[in-house]
């Protein structure tokens, strides 16, 4: 216990340093705003803003981005409740009961519930994160290249087994990301690879940010432009001291379901393919199933707002656990954070705890404060956010595009990358319309170089014998679980068709985000 408490205190003190605290507050505010805008979620905010953080040292940069991530999870509920449009995919389940509450004139109570439930989710998950991370990192120190490779296969397998998207399309997406990661000079032999059309711009490889900003910046904006052609209807919100006082008495109504949802969300969030969107939907379903009057859900039940909001915040913290301890991101957003850490010269994974303890514990400490700052800002700024949501999308869109273009140019300073980014954005948008999941590609391009390196190292040490991945106990287990996940959807479908004949409706998961 002491081995956790002492560095945690150090981390909390670190997070309170002026630079870090400033970045944390700015990050929370931007995150709340980004989350509240329909069509923009944590992943978009983090992708677009990552280049901007080269201005400050890595510790402050990751604190800023983690705060954006956190704030966006809080902000997502604002447009779910006041507009009836989820602010990001992670807040989809919040619409179910948040919208009816707003229609009944109780938007203030719904918004306060979302904020407090998010705080519950955030707090429970940060404490779990603090307790789980050091032992997991210590365990992961035993991993060799074979285990690393097997673990990455496991991460990709979760997309196939649990992602809920078309399997062939998911695999295509993963492989496209991995192939793009191989472009450029081969690290081991130094030979140039996949230099398309002999363009010199491909020699430095395809930066993961080019793909991430292309898909989550440009592609997402095109997607949102298509979706928001219609008018949006904002609900009137009266919020003041009185509604806060009224709300304090109601917290006990949802304290238990919110806490249970936090636990569920946290563990779902750890899985790479799952994350905040399915986590919040599962929490909603669980709370409804455990409730005494399930019929009141969907008609403005306060627990129906609390459960998904607690779960999506918990999931966002959960997805940081494998990123920090194993170097495997638990969500697209953490994949981008991981890519950022590689740019800053930090190798995420078990060694991070021993080599850069200040960085890790500073981040952990900042999560506590980011959680607190987000809930306070969220409640204080409810009137402002409601005003901002009436802004026309044709003002926001060009500003985001400019940030994408300039931000995409900053890391490598070549126009080649900007052209590529536009290409990825348009291709990603078109493929997304055909239900190709895009998140696996972003995860794959970040993990690609590490996956190839560990594969080649393992094969070299085993003289080309692929059984190295199956013979060692740990990597063998990972590979076996990965294989099970690959087979699972086929078995599940076979089972469904056998049982239900032709009346079965296939379950569809959302695009995992957050």
């Amino acid at each position, binding site marked *: 216990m002491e081995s956790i408490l002492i560095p945690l205190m150090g981390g909390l003190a670190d997070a309170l340093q002026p630079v870090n605290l400033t970045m944390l507050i700015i990050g929370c505010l931007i995150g709340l705003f980004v989350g509240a805008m329909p069509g923009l979620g944590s992943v978009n905010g983090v992708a677009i803003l990552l280049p*901007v953080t*080269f*201005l400050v040292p890595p510790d402050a940069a990751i604190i800023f981005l983690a705060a954006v991530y956190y704030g966006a999870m809080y902000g997502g509920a604002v447009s779910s409740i006041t507009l009836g449009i989820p602010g990001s995919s992670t807040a989809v389940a919040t619409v179910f009961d948040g919208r009816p509450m707003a229609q009944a004139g109780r938007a203030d109570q719904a918004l306060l519930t979302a904020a407090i439930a998010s705080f519950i989710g955030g707090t429970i998950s940060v404490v779990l994160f603090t307790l789980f991370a050091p032992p997991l990192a210590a365990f992961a120190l035993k991993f060799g290249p074979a285990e690393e490779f097997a673990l990455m296969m496991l991460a990709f397998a979760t997309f196939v087994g649990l992602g809920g998207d*078309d399997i*062939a*399309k998911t*695999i*295509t997406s993963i*492989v*496209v990301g*991995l*192939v793009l990661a*191989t472009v450029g000079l*081969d690290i*081991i*032999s130094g*030979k140039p*690879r*996949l230099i*398309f059309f002999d363009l010199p711009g491909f020699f430095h490889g395809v930066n993961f940010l080019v793909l991430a900003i292309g898909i989550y910046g*440009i592609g997402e*904006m*095109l997607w949102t*432009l*298509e979706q928001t*052609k219609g008018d949006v209807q904002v609900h009137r919100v009266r919020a003041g001291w009185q509604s806060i006082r009224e709300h304090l008495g109601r917290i006990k109504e949802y304290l238990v379901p919110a806490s249970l949802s936090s636990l569920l969300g946290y563990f779902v969030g750890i899985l790479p393919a799952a994350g905040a969107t399915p986590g919040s939907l599962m929490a909603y379903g669980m709370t409804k199933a455990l409730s005494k009057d399930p019929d009141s859900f969907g008609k403005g039940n306060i627990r129906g707002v609390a459960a998904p909001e607690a779960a999506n915040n918990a999931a966002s913290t959960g997805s940081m656990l494998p990123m920090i301890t194993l170097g495997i991101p638990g969500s697209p957003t953490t994949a981008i954070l991981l890519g950022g850490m590689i740019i800053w010269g930090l190798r995420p994974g078990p060694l991070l705890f021993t080599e850069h303890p200040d960085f890790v514990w500073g981040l952990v400490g900042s999560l506590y404060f980011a959680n607190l700052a987000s809930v306070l800002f969220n409640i204080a700024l409810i009137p402002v956010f409601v005003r901002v949501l009436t802004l*026309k999308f*044709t*003002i926001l*869109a*060009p*500003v985001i*595009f*400019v940030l994408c*273009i*300039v931000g995409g*140019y*900053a890391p490598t*300073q070549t*126009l080649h990358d*900007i*052209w590529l980014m*536009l290409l990825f954005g*348009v291709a990603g*948008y*078109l*493929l997304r*319309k*055909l*239900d*190709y999941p895009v998140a696996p590609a972003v995860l794959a391009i970040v993990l690609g170089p590490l996956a*190839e390196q560990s*594969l*080649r*190292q393992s*094969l*070299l040490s085993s003289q*080309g014998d692929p059984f190295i991945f199956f013979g060692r106990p740990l990597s063998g287990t990972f590979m076996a679980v990965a294989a099970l996940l690959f087979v699972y959807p086929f078995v599940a479908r076979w089972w469904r068709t056998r049982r239900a004949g032709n009346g079965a409706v296939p379950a569809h998961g959302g695009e995992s985000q957050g």
Partner: protein
Amino acid sequence: MTVRTAEFTAAILLSLAALGLMWKSTDGLSIGWVSGAGPGSGFWPFWLSFVMLLSSLATLARCFFGATPQSRSTEQFMDRETVQIVGTTVAALFFLILGSSYFGLYVSLIAFLFFYLRILGGHSWGVSVGLTLFIPIFVFFFFEYLMTIPLPKGITQPLFYPIYQLIY
């Protein structure tokens, strides 16, 4: 174009891309075992592209048998309104990047923002001109001054010399 046609086209294009990638992976690279160095440089991209080929062909087969929801849909892939707004946006971005390499980013930004806000968005003159001027100035201050990242200026490069002398 219907969704069904789009689904077919995408699967065919991805299969062709996978074949191209497989060919490109063998281009001067070894895809097999190099003694003493382990798997060759082309090994990983080649087999990945092969998996991509298989998965795209699987999608193609599934379209053919109508197994994906998209391959049964005869709706328009993009309706008129979508083509207009998304198409215009993509074209505007295209000219923004193209313009950046000739006239510099700042001139292109001004043109892009004015087009988007005033002509496409139909916002008031005050909002349009205000943002059109404010955003490039903010970008200059943030990226060139604070982060010292020179953005492309093309033929407008000489115009910036006096400003550089002022701030550096």
